């Protein structure tokens, strides 16, 4: 669906015959605006779908879902870089855009900068016989990270080539620019193998700060002590966790496959008793920090994750009418139970 407001440089609440007549859109977009936006019923239905597609575009862009199987190029109008700004400020039409370009070109410093920046790109194009990409100049192997979820690493620079591995969003990758080609970046995997990833899924820098910024954007809050942050199996065993005064903590119990079974919050200086621990052998992980992001399941600031290398066993045994459950206590303190530091990404 087309965004008739942006294409015709119109504001949703100020759409009338005169505005459409004088707008910058092409004839087809103007005709559509006359037919649809001037009819109350059609406009109401169009506006409902418009609002939904704007929200979907926002979600897809932020969650790396552009290009997935249900994505269509015709929804591209709804992938504005800043939807909130676009709502109040319609896109520049061709007339205004031309004016801005002319004004910019008349500025001599801009002309100089443009010419200077074209030199290395032209050189790169001559060398490689393809359109230059400023982020992949030769000998530029600065760190990069993955910007979408489930990015496939292909054995050859071809989308049909077999997939060798899947990269996660914000994962750091090592790129070999010598072997990168066209739209494809050559990345080295942990097992020393290498493969090709579409450059559009990579960005310069480290994944950690990028993830932190994104998490902060979603919003942060401070849950209550003992508040469960994810659903998993439940049981009748008990875990008591003591968090000494200081930072708040996230506590997880993971099974031997790394699946999180229990995930809860303990504020600094508080003790919680969680009495729905399922049977099984678990490893306790905790992270202290500030500003919990529910969307990311981690702290945004000052996060430090730790792991208890020993597995804890919870078992529910019955003897006659007597039912016995397990209870364990842990104090979240460096040194106790030999907690060892782990990367925040592992948590």
């Amino acid at each position, binding site marked *: 669906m087309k965004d008739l407001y942006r294409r015709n440089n119109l504001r949703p609440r100020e759409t009338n015959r005169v505005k459409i007549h004088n707008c910058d859109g092409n004839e087809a977009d103007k005709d559509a605006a006359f037919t649809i936006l001037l009819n109350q019923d059609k406009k109401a239905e*169009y506006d*409902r779908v418009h609002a939904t597609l704007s929200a*979907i575009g*926002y979600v897809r862009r932020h*969650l790396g879902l552009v290009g997935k199987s*249900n994505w269509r190029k015709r929804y591209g109008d709804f992938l504005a870089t800043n939807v909130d700004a676009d709502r109040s400020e319609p896109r520049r039409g061709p007339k205004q855009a031309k004016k801005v370009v002319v004004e910019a070109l008349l500025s001599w410093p801009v002309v100089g900068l443009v010419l200077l920046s074209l030199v290395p790109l032209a050189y790169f194009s001559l060398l490689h016989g393809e359109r230059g990409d400023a982020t992949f100049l030769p000998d530029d192997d600065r760190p990069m990270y993955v910007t979408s979820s489930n990015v496939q690493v292909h054995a050859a620079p071809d989308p049909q080539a077999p997939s060798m591995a899947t990269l996660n969003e914000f994962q750091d990758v090592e790129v070999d620019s010598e072997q990168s080609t066209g739209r494809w970046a050559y990345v080295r995997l942990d097992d020393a193998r290498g493969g090709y990833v579409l450059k559009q899924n990579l960005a310069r820098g480290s994944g950690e700060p990028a993830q932190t910024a994104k998490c902060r*954007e*979603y919003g*942060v809050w401070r849950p209550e002590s003992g508040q469960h*942050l994810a659903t998993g199996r439940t049981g009748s065993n008990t875990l008591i966790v003591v968090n000494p005064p200081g930072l708040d903590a996230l506590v997880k119990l993971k099974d031997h496959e790394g699946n999180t079974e229990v995930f809860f919050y303990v504020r600094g200086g508080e003790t919680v008793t969680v009495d729905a621990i399922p049977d099984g052998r678990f490893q306790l992980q905790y992270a202290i920090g500030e500003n919990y992001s529910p969307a990311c399941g981690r702290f945004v600031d000052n996060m430090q994750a730790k792991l208890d290398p020993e597995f804890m066993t919870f078992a529910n045994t019955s003897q006659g009418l007597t039912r016995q459950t397990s209870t364990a206590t842990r104090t979240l303190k460096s040194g106790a139970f030999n907690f060892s530091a782990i990367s925040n990404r592992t948590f």
Partner: protein
Amino acid sequence: MNSKLADLLARSEHQVDICVAFALLWIAAADGALDQDTRAYMGRHFEALSGGLEYSDQLLAIIAANDLSSFLVACRILQRELREEEKYFFMDLAIGAATANHHLATSANHILRLYSDLLEVSLEQVGVLYREKTGSDLPEPGDPGSVLWWEIREHVPGQRFSRAEAYAVLGLEKEASLAEIKKAYRRLAQNYHPDRYVSVEAEAREAAEHNFLRVQQAYEVLSE
């Protein structure tokens, strides 16, 4: 600034359930206010969701305000927290919420496809769930931004389609071959055939009959 949904989640212990309720209300309210059938459906299924009923008015207000950060938070949490079997259960509930009033709104159709990508439940699998629930195929979303789409929608039965309209009714490009036209006609005619809608409610049956006639008329135009 926190999203409105994040503020609400901060007061609850049931974040995932509330996000499920939010996502279901988004799709249920995609066509505007909730009608009686949809309210009844949501009421039945929200009983199982902790906090779903309690917060439904606030969740609807957030949806009505089109708070983009809230949609993002809900989708992010569902993507992270729902387990494999829960994803299918959720898709089934979402299809039920979208079609509780026997009509799939264009917006709801788009949201279903977003959830399909978000939870990595393929469109084929969504199609199977949709067919089980409604007895018909999941249609392509309509395009209220297209003049042609409105012309077809307002087409009076018996009035002749233009060739451009006929191609669009059958979901084909103008370059489609005769074989493709026949194939599309057979598929759609089978989908909307009145015999398949004998035991459904009158409203759904009439909609199917209307679509069946349109498909027939479009095929007549293109097969000349």
